[in-house]
């Protein structure tokens, strides 16, 4: 059963959180789930909730949460910067360790949530900030932010063309705009600098992890793509890659059977 509630972000925003209590008592590290953003969050909501339920059934305390300005959380998406998401993750981690009594958590993130989880673990590695990451599971993480921003831009253009039939105008997603304006991205108000924040991400050069990590490539292919290979090589010897042939469920309106992904995570997580 989910226990729903709110935790508080450093700026005072209430962050929606759902705690899945472990079905059996277990000393195993709890799992903090980091969701993706925008439409991907909506499309992946059911899959991540189901995964949380299976992890809890396997004895893991699990916490899901929404970043400020996202989902059921308070705060404004128009004011959100990438650094705020890291702060929100830290607040959720603190809540999970408090509830579970554990000192370390497994960070599990999808898409930009996976990117955030990896960055968080890397920060711990460099001793710059928080430690306490037992392991990371990154599902289809975005490793090069500029590629993601380009895809957002294209997607924005596609949406505009489909809705107006035109194809005119500058796609709303682009850096360098008036710092005081907000941008409409798929119906979400976004701070223009947020796209610059994301474009600056490059996990290929971020350094090696000091905790175990599983990166799951989710795509039409069963062999590693160049991007995945580069990422895992950059993350160092503690990182491992699994390739899963599965539709990108975070892009689909229809239900996709994510059972095979859950099986990979459930198989891996006892080692963490």
């Amino acid at each position: 059963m989910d226990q729903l509630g709110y935790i508080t972000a450093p700026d005072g925003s209430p962050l929606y959180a759902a705690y899945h209590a472990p079905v059996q008592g277990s000393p195993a590290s709890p799992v903090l789930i980091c969701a993706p953003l925008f439409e991907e969050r909506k499309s992946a909501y059911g899959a991540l909730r189901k995964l949380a339920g299976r992890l809890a059934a396997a004895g893991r305390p699990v916490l899901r949460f929404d970043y400020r300005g996202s989902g059921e959380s308070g705060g404004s998406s128009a004011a959100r910067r990438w650094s705020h998401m890291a702060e929100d993750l830290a607040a959720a981690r603190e809540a999970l360790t408090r509830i579970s009594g554990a000192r370390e958590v497994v960070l599990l993130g999808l898409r930009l949530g996976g990117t955030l989880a990896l960055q968080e673990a890397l920060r711990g590695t460099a001793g710059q900030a928080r430690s306490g990451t037992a392991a990371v599971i990154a599902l289809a993480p975005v490793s090069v932010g500029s590629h993601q921003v380009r895809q957002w831009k294209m997607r924005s253009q596609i949406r505009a063309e489909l809705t107006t039939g035109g194809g005119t105008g500058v796609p709303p997603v682009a850096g360098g705009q008036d710092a005081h304006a907000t941008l409409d991205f798929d119906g979400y108000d976004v701070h223009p600098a947020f796209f610059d924040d994301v474009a600056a991400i490059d996990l290929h050069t971020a350094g090696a992890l000091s905790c175990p990590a599983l990166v799951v490539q989710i795509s039409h292919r069963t062999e590693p793509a160049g991007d995945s290979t580069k990422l895992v090589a950059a993350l160092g010897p503690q990182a491992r890659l699994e390739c899963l042939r599965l539709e990108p469920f975070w892009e689909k309106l229809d239900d996709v059977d994510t059972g095979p992904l859950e099986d990979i995570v459930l198989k891996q997580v006892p080692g963490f």
Partner: protein
Amino acid sequence: MPERVEDRLKAMIVERLMLKAKPEDIGDEDDLIKKWNVESVQLMEIVIGLEEVFGIQLGDDEFSIKKFRTVTNIAAVVREKKPDA
């Protein structure tokens, strides 16, 4: 005989979009959105596929749905960018 660009595109589309169809089921002039229920984000996957399979890079202002609505139209983009394809 070299494979037609259109046929390579169909194989790429079926594989990357994981369509439940055979490449030969797709007609050159089929509207991919209407007939094959290709969603907007999947058109982006086709653009990425062009980059990976054909080595074609599209500029940010070169994309339009019209160019990606049918295999014939996508093939025209390929031939324009890579005449020897």
